[in-house]
């Protein structure tokens, strides 16, 4: 390990076995979260374009790039297999001087041996052992347990909003750099105790990467619909957390085969009684290509939403959402009518 001091902030570009960083006393920082929780994320994107990033590049990559230019982060762990090559190009060719880039791969074929090798590499870098990591896994699992409860309350008790559900799941990539403080935030969600959402609300699964829309959830609720399944964000929270650290990172679906994701989606769609899917695709992202695949593999109706820059839902996107909600409600009503007659 190259002279890491405790509390040093370590950037990550996507979910990695963050237990290793916590074991080293360093603090993981998900660059995506810094970007999107900024007061003016759009200014951050403008800055990246000003610095010369092509406009037809994913907004998440632009956001992370600007963030790296302006923070005190000197080490970034980047996922070089299992995420996107735009991030790799950015980390490789555009890092400011003095920032070190540590590559991490999720081996495509889910090889136990190769994944262990990759994890060992990061452990060696930070000078920690498997046992240290298992200890930090226990610490994080305490928090994950609450996240899973919140997730269950979202779809089963219907007493947690889509927004709170997303907040809990998405912050599990880095535990906000402080698992115990994060836990307090999560407990606040548990304590909200709201009335269950009405049964008439449509139940959506949101497939794909996190959106850049700032008002998706309230808008959906105003139309009588909710997201009760965040496919990728739920995976960030390691739903299979009970197993060991290696298994946990092998059963994490996102970086591996598309069909592993499909299987997970099919299972959760049944369990959660979904009415349909919203497949969110980020402009210029390779996951756009999977839209066709989802349409072939999944039987529920799918609405594809494309997002580019950060901000409120635009009129075109609202039209799509309205139509999808109104169409599904009318179908449902007709089905119920037919059932009654």
């Amino acid at each position, binding site marked *: 390990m190259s002279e890491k001091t405790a509390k040093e902030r370590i950037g990550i570009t996507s979910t990695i076995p963050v237990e290793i960083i916590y074991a080293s006393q360093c603090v993981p920082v998900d660059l995506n979260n810094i970007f999107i929780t900024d007061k003016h994320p759009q200014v951050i994107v403008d800055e990246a374009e000003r610095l010369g990033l092509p406009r037809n590049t994913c907004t998440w990559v632009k956001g992370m790039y600007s963030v790296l230019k302006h923070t005190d982060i000197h080490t970034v762990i980047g996922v070089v297999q299992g995420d996107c090559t735009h991030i790799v190009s950015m980390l490789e060719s555009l890092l400011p001087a003095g920032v070190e880039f540590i590559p991490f791969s999720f081996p495509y074929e889910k090889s136990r041996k190769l994944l262990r090798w990759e994890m060992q590499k990061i452990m060696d870098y930070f000078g920690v052992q498997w046992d240290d990591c298992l200890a930090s896994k226990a610490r994080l699992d305490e928090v994950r347990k609450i996240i899973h409860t919140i997730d269950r309350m979202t779809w089963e008790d219907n007493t947690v909003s889509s927004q709170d559900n997303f907040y809990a799941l998405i912050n599990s990539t880095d535990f906000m750099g402080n698992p115990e403080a994060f836990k307090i935030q999560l407990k606040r969600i548990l304590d909200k105790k709201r009335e269950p959402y009405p049964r008439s609300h449509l139940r959506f699964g949101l497939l794909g990467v996190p959106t850049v829309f700032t008002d998706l959830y309230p808008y959906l609720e105003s139309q009588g619909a909710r997201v009760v399944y965040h496919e990728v964000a739920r995976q960030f929270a390691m739903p299979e957390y009970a197993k060991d650290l290696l298994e946990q990172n092998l059963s994490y679906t996102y970086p591996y085969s598309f069909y592993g994701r499909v299987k997970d989606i099919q299972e959760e769609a049944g369990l959660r009684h979904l009415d349909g899917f919203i497949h969110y695709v980020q402009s210029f992202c390779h996951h756009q290509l999977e839209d066709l695949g989802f349409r072939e593999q999944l039987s529920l109706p799918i609405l594809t939403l*494309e997002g580019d820059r950060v901000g409120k839902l635009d009129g*075109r996107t609202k*039209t799509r959402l309205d139509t999808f909600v109104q169409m599904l409600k*009318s179908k449902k009503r007709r089905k119920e009518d037919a059932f009654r007659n």
Partner: protein
Amino acid sequence: MRLGIDIGSRKVKFALQSDNNRMKLWDMPTTDLYHQHLHRKPDGTNELDFHSLGLPQVDIVAATGYGRNNVKLSQALVVSEILAHAAGAMRVLQGEFLMLDMGGQDTKVALVRDGQVEDFSVNDKCAAGSGRYLENMAQVLGVPLEELFSYYADPADLTTTCAVYAESEIIGKLAEGVTMPQLCAGVNYSTFLKIRPMLERWPQKELVFVGGGAKNKAMLHYLQQAHYAVVIPEAPEYNGVLGCLEMLDKEEEE
């Protein structure tokens, strides 16, 4: 008296249905509506100013179009324009068919089955092939839109996808000696190519073609060539506003 209103990005279309079921159709620029015919209320919603519109007090208003969410008409039943167009299309065709609406910015396709929208698709974020693209190209070629719409034979091969940059490609071809009719046909054909994947999502050959784009004869030709049985309603550009009045009817029935 019932009023339907379709608030598009450039034009607002009105349909006024009198109690004896006579229909009056007209339009105005969207900016005029915003500037002259709306009362903004403290709660952020708006009221149509029937007086300045030269209308009598109207009982029921149904609204559709992009503007419907922004304008938040307090007096209106608000309907998605895709569903409105589908309802409009059901006036002229029953059973199972595709509705193709070509508007100024977006092209929308809906699969209709037994009076119900089963699924739909809208074009992607890039506006190549939109109505605005056709307008721009007509302007560059110096022909009226109606004339552009009449050419389909021997289309020039256009590869530029951007609605703006296609201009320089067209000018270039003109200089190379490609004829105006070929270029007009090329513009139409490239638009057809853009729309086709949306239609082919469903194996369906009955098609109702609506919106301002339905006046495009070349598009009709390409659709028929692709073995679609195409129905175009009268006044296809008013299909959305008429459809939203239809939905009002249905709503009342229930």
